[in-house]
């Protein structure tokens, strides 16, 4: 388990934009990924309230979704976002970190389907949710399910 977190950390370190937003893995495995992003005044969308911009939350959810695909048991070699639909429920509370929980809940031979939610400290009321379709490149010689 510590191995996979280590690998996950290297994965984030290798993505310049994930590093730029300060993203950190909380857990990873079996088609599920949890990634958090600290609050940062540079990512504010509404200066009057200090609320984070939706785009920063989208970037976090997209990263968590891609990570969920990559750790699916079919062991894909690469993935890319085909489409992502984001629903915004409420403003994130200023000063609080955002945590994205993504699950790759279905895969076909070449497509992965993911759902993800984003929360601040109040887990019970997510700030946003998204569903996406991702490309799935299987290892050569791998069997389709």
């Amino acid at each position, binding site marked *: 388990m510590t191995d996979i977190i280590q690998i996950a950390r290297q994965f984030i370190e*290798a*993505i*310049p*934009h*994930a*590093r*730029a937003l300060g993203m950190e893995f909380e857990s990873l495995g079996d088609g599920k990924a949890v990634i958090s992003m600290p609050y940062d*005044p*540079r*990512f*504010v*969308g*509404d*200066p*009057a309230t200090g609320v*984070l*911009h*939706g*785009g*920063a939350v*989208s*970037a*976090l*959810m*997209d*990263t968590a979704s*891609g990570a969920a695909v990559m750790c699916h048991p079919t062991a894909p070699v*690469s993935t*890319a*976002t*085909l*489409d*992502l*639909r*984001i*629903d*915004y429920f409420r403003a994130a509370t200023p000063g609080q970190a955002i945590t994205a929980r993504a699950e790759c809940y279905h895969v076909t031979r070449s497509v992965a389907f993911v759902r993800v939610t984003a929360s601040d400290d109040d887990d019970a009321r997510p700030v946003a949710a998204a569903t996406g379709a991702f490309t799935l490149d299987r290892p050569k010689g791998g069997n389709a399910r």
Partner: protein
Amino acid sequence: MTVQRPEPVQVIKQRRDAALRGLLSGVPYIAYLGIQFDRRGDELTAILPFDEKLIGNPALPALHGGVTAAFLEVAAIIELAWGGLWEEMEAGRIDPTADMAPVRLPKTIDFTVDYLRSGLPRDAYARARINRSGRRYASVHVEAWQDNRARLFAQGTGHFLIPQPPDGTPEKGLPSA
């Protein structure tokens, strides 16, 4: 009968550029991503100059999908707010060169991004089109490209909530039906 001479072109440009600056300067995340806007009359083009920190896949390399989503969403929100601001300014109801009250930005309800090809490590451009703007809700479509205008690398559609003033009439500075 006296005919009023039209204002000098520099005065008009100065006012319009001040309005656009006023709209953008308050949003830290727009500055963080480095997004700029090119204005030709009332037409806006969003520009995302390439930067290493925008990369999501270092192997290709390609822009981060989240960056693309954010870029499209920013282009849509600014287009929506700009439409209303332009009307107010051209009608002479606000003077952006004087103290301009901060514009309340529309809130995103949902946003769908269609990734058509990977974003190359180069500058990207986007233009938004308001398909419907009512008193409370608006629907906006955005197209983004890099080298060729006809070869989009992403497109998006979003629904937005128009900020309502306390008395319930449409907000000044934002599009109304």
